[in-house]
């Protein structure tokens, strides 16, 4: 017995010491290791509906339209050219010829039609990006495909640049089943027409991408390894230890602040299309009166939130349309104001509230879905709103799945929400929250025929000037009805080692790994 224990003890010690001394230091320039705290959902363009999975799919697949790296400018991808009929409800794309999937299957108009039909048939979560707009797809000839829309659409090209529109290989993907893991595919690998192919996938641990030999363009780094971390601080430490070449999404504000001060890393600050805002349940709750909503919106001190909670890494936002996007107007600043206690009290007094009879409501937040800063943000917001003696806030929290359920229960009078757009257009930042259908889906239940009419007009117009006017009008109206109150617009930070360049992330969060290179 003694012998057994001695041997075991020595063995464990020896192995530990060897292990301590043998940390992997292998580095090569044909491989880049990228760390993130994000996670992958379903690796199927018909089902994926989150920015990280989309980011991977941007690199494994390609759309008929894509974004110019690092910009919000649309450019032709697999399409060689396109034409739109006068009414704006038929989009015809001429495809690039001679492009092949990795198994040798030729990319044709049939592949596009098959992929779109598959999305429409599966009716999955992001499927509405197709089904709400597309009536049918026609193969005009081998390399020409036509999208027949349900009605004219002013931003259809932006939709075509989204992942559900990406053509997949009909010989590899099942026609009527969603793919969660590439091992379910014929060949066991996720391959498309993009710059990289996924060689292996270990959920929550590692993804290995390798340059696609059939890609019509050029890649600079042969292998991209994505490492998944549960904790941002651990990721930061791994980066500082040299294990990672690049870190992106989502470091804590304090970690970002520290890394920004270090000269040995390249840092990139990217304006994010991500916005945060306070929503109100407008149909049944204490917030059904628009004056109450206006009062609460007026009490928000956006600058303090950005400074205290996000160490100035976010920008105060005074419209639901993000800064830099066409039609953006700071109407919440000019019409309601920032931390405007006089405005708030005036509105509340009009409703009969007083010190002894304050407006009392629950402020809901979800503690982990938007990161570790959410609890602080809710606390700061509560204190700001309660600066008016006529308001009393009761903070409440629920995990994301319960939060979603609460949308139906209508039991959250005010709740914090965030939005990563589906497509980069003001429509996606407004109709989803003030249109009758979209609003109900987000737990707001705002409904006003005037808004619905305006949304219909902007959606069906291909005249961008006219659309701009409509969105400016909508933003002005928003300050009167306040279905939501914008708070801030996020920024994204990417850190790389000094010898890595080519980080170009566009407003649509398109991060093309093919642009990355070693100096």
């Amino acid at each position, binding site marked *: 017995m003694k012998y057994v224990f001695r041997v075991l003890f020595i063995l464990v010690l020896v192995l530990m010491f060897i292990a301590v001394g043998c940390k*992997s*230091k292998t580095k090569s320039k044909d491989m880049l290791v990228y*760390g993130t705290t994000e996670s992958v959902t379903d690796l199927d363009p018909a089902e994926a509906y989150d920015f990280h999975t989309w980011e991977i799919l941007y690199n494994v697949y390609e759309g008929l339209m894509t974004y110019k790296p690092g910009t919000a400018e649309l450019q032709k991808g697999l399409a060689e050219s396109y034409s739109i009929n006068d009414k704006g409800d038929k989009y015809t794309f001429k495809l690039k010829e001679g492009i092949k999937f990795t198994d040798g299957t030729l990319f044709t108009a049939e592949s596009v039609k098959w992929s779109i039909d598959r999305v429409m048939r599966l009716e999955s979560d992001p499927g509405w990006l197709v089904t709400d707009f597309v009536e049918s797809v026609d193969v005009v000839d081998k390399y020409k495909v036509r999208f027949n829309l349900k009605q004219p659409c002013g931003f259809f090209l932006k939709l075509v640049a989204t992942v559900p529109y990406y053509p997949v290989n009909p010989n590899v993907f099942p026609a009527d089943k969603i793919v969660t893991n590439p091992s379910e595919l014929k060949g066991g690998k996720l391959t498309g027409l993009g710059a990289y192919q996924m060689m292996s996938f270990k959920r929550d*641990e590692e993804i290995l991408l390798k340059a696609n030999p059939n890609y019509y363009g050029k890649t600079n780094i042969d292998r991209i390894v994505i490492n998944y*971390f*549960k904790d941002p601080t651990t990721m930061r430490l791994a980066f500082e230890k040299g294990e990672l070449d690049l870190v992106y999404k989502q470091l804590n504000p304090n970690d970002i602040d520290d890394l920004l001060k270090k000269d040995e890393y390249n840092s990139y600050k990217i304006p994010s299309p991500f916005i945060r805002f306070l929503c109100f349940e407008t149909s049944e709750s204490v917030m059904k009166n628009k004056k109450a909503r206006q009062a609460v919106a007026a009490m928000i001190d956006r600058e303090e939130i950005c400074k205290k909670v996000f160490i100035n890494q976010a920008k105060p936002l005074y419209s639901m349309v993000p800064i830099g996007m066409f039609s953006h107007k700071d109407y919440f600043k000019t019409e309601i104001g920032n931390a405007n206690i006089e405005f708030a009290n005036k509105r509340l007094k009009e409703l009969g509230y007083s010190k002894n009879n304050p407006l009392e409501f629950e402020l809901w937040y979800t503690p982990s879905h938007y990161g570790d800063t959410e609890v602080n943000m809710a606390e700061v917001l509560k204190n700001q709103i309660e600066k008016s003696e006529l308001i009393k806030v009761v903070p409440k929290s629920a995990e994301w799945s319960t939060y*979603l359920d609460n949308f139906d229960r209508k039991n959250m009078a005010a709740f914090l929400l965030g939005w990563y757009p589906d497509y980069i257009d003001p429509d996606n930042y407004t109709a989803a929250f003030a249109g009758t259908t979209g609003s109900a889906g987000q737990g707001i239940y705002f409904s006003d025929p005037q808004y619905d009419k305006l949304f219909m007009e902007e959606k069906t117009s291909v005249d961008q000037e006219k659309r701009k006017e409509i969105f400016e009008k909508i933003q002005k109206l928003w300050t009167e009805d306040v279905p939501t109150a914008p708070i801030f617009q996020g920024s994204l930070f990417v850190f790389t080692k000094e010898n890595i360049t080519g980080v170009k992330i566009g407003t649509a969060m398109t991060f093309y790994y093919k642009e990355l290179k070693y100096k």
Partner: protein
Amino acid sequence: MKRILKYFTIRLLLTIPMIFILLTLIFFVLRVMPADPVKSMLGAHAPERVIEQKRKELGLDKPILAQYVDYLKQLARFDLGKSMIMEQKVITPIKDKLPATLELIIFGLIIALVLGVFLGAYGANNRGTGKDTTIRLYGLIVFCIPAYWMGLMLQLIFGIWFDWLPIAGRTSSRVLVAEFNNTGFYLIDTLIAGNIPAFLDVLAHLVLPALTLALILSGIFVRLTRANMLDVLNNDYILAARARGISEKKVVYKHALKNTMVPILTMLGMQFALLIANAVLTESTFSWPGMANLLVKRIHLRDYPTVQAIIILIAVMVSLSSLIVDLVYAWIDPRVEY
């Protein structure tokens, strides 16, 4: 042998009602919790028609008792069901994550046993001395420390201050799992692949999380071994052994230690549940991609079938470990009869 077989069969049969009660409890608790798994799966955008269709497909439109009966029927066919969140069978993510947890638990248990039993025996042998007091104090302190705090301290000391060991994950970022992943037990996989640098890297990653689990459990073993050893050392046969001139070391570590092992083994079986509970916290602290992390994630997403399957599996593991311990008694102590 016949007796052992009978005992084994009875014990195995007794686990069935235990698991049945447990799965019934879990089934109903999950369903009375707020949040809708269909909404979690389809998101806020999904049309009501699609949500209803999915609810029907998953059987969630039926009364809760009908759902329960369906679930039992499904289990009777040895089918754990399909995940409600992802388009996959629940067994797929479990198969993927179980090896990571087992690797951590087994390694942690070995260290805990070696450390706990050795220190306990050493303390008993040096009863009343400063060494004994230090060991007793150690046993008390490590047992009281929460797993996450212990993990954080080990990360801080060995991972950050000394920079000796990795603090998270199962491999370094530059060690590609794709090059050796086979069984999911990375220590074995790397050896099969003959990839010694990767093996050492995996081992290095295992040290701190396993040590976190081990230190906490070792506290129990230290106290238990010491107490039992003191009892054993007062027995007549120990006195006789000493009288025969056998060296003190041999008396303590050969004759006495073996006789303290029965209660230690009992405790080992009982501690398995505690080990799993601590593994949940350890996996979170060390970003260890195992079952515990999967369980927490799926609870948040209200993925009923996966949560149920994981809990059943843990219950089976705890029952089996206790059964195995009972069987090992006979080997350790021939006086034990079944």
